[in-house]
């Protein structure tokens, strides 16, 4: 399997999330402006800056995200500030979920979560898949994990 990228629409999901975060974070500033502790443009500027940062983060995140099913491992490469490359040996996969949150459903997307017994990378989430792609990936990983003959994982 060659290197896969996420569905471009995942950017919309992440940008929506950035909008939400920007709104929540600039709400106190808005309150302060309403009570005229701060000038009225302050919440707009704060919100705008946060939104810009969030959007840039979402776009770069989309560009960085890659995953690949290799011969004996699932390989993920992601992260903007801290780049993380995770190698999940297929033998270590405990179970695989495909899941769809409300925002993801609205954007027509789904994600796939891979669980191992490890503690730090215990659940590896691959977002931005089409619903069919997510269940295909789940089935594929399940098949490969069984073929890889997972022994007693711990």
């Amino acid at each position, binding site marked *: 399997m060659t290197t896969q990228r996420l569905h471009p629409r995942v950017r919309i999901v992440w940008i929506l999330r950035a909008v939400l975060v920007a709104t929540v974070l600039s709400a106190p500033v808005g309150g302060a402006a309403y009570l005229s502790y701060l000038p009225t443009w302050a919440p707009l500027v704060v919100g705008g800056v946060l939104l810009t940062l969030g959007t840039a983060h979402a776009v770069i995140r989309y560009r960085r995200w890659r995953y690949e099913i290799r011969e004996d491992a699932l390989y993920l490469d992601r992260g903007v*500030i801290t*780049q*993380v*490359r995770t190698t*999940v040996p297929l033998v270590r996969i405990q179970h695989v979920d495909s899941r769809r949150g409300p925002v993801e459903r609205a954007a027509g997307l789904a994600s796939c979560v891979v669980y191992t*017994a*490890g503690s*730090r990378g215990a659940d590896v989430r691959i977002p931005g898949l089409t619903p069919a792609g997510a269940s295909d990936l789940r089935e594929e990983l399940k098949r490969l994990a069984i073929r890889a003959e*997972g022994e*007693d994982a711990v």
Partner: protein
Amino acid sequence: MKLAPQSIPYRALQKVSGVVLVIFFVVNDSARLGLLPAVGLAGGVLTVAFAYEVAYYRRYEYELTTDTLDIRSGVISRREREIPYRRIQNVDVSRSVIQRAIGVAAIDLETAGGSETEGAIRFVTPEAATHLQREVQRLKRGVESNQEGESSTAPEGPDEQLLFEISPRELALVGALSFDGRLIGLLVFVGSGSVPVVSGLLPDASAMALSGVVIAAVGGLVLVSWVLGAGVSFSNYYGFRLSRAGDELRYERGLFRRYSGSIPTEKVQTLTITDNPAKRALGYATLTIETAGYAPGQGGEDGNQAAIPIARRDRVYDLAREVESFGDPAFTRPPRRVQWRYGIRYLIVVSVLTSVAFGVNSLTGVDIPWYAAALLLLAVPPAAYLKWRHRGYWLGEDHLLTRNGVWSRSVKAVPYYRMQNVIDRRSLFQRRWNVATVVADTAGTSSLVGDDAAAVDIDTDDAVTLCDALTSRLQASLNDRRPRQAAFEWVDTEVVSSESVPEPSDTEPESGSDEVEPASKGTVSDSGEKPDDNDSGTDSTETDDSGTDAVSDGDTAELGPNASERDRE
């Protein structure tokens, strides 16, 4: 089998004694009610609790079947739980002072699943507890040897071989050297409430007197926390002994509350050897053994999890090799340029401290020597050097070893076979220095708090080869264990052949990583700090032993959960 009958009054009192006391005093003190209603009410609560515990006792039943430990319990909602022996990680028995007096013991069975203890049996007689501990081990082996088809290898009741017993001198050292910084934080937090009182008593105190008080207070805090820490670890490790019985390690410890438990060696996830400057100067170290259940010896309340609280350094290494024979480590250090990274990091900390001191000095008018903080600058280069010097990683025959930490230095040994994930992580700042951190994640417990074995700040090229080497060595170790297993499983030639195909290609990345090691500039092979290897002769036999155990451990027929249970209302 049933619980100990003494547990009925003990459990009842344990649960409601506080409530009963409160009820008694509140009702007795109130004007309209008197002594009689108080006694009546308290007696009523006690009776109800007693009746409940009698029902609990009657309902509670545990049984050792051929391959599972079954626990049936519950008064109102019934629960039946079956724990396969092979999934049991640890069996722990603890007895507090009161429990010892009335002759009961608490058993905790840990499996890797879930966050809490899977099987908590409260309470049985000490004899029954020891019996259960031994039986679980015996039956576990029985299950495995049956599946292997060679039951003759299992000796009945392996004799215990004492590995380590704490000497009074070592016990005193444990107390003296276990300085817990967290206690200071706690005491400061508690003591901060008294600050307004103290400052009220000293209205016209000069700055000199104030700083004198502060210094005395800090000294007192350090002393008190040191004494407390010493007391806690003294009572924790009093009478510590570690022995080996077949494929299990058994420990016993505790002054007030006695703990005893078993650690199956084939379930070991990580070995950690820690020391601090004091221990290093005296030539001592601490060994921690981790399984997936939890870190054994962890009392729950203090987070102490040492398998060997303290022993001579070479002794600790010998014992560690006995559990996992990782050989003689020769650590590869990160590239020298990361010293600059650490230097800059410390420089920022020092300048922040200095500017805070300066700000306090100029804003509040309290005359403190703010430039004293700048003296810390002198400590920056040695600190950066030491931080670099104490880092390192080493790829052994079957283990990855990592070393980190200046103050409390820890060497971690992870068997390749136990790795779950390999994570290569590069922060924004690490990318500027072209370095990366490689984490080998296991199912061990300390990785829950982010304490995984990690090769920190190694060159990015080395990181890539290290990741490849780790994953291929994991596959190789799995392949090593597979052929013997395939003999007694269903014959699926296609799967077997496709599994054995990667084997020749596995060796390539490994040899590649070996080539890289000498080629990478600035890495220094650390041979000066190799521990003495006195015990290599016996090591090999020990590994063979644990190797076969682990093979039989890896049985694919059972992919089910660790403990199956049925709840019904």
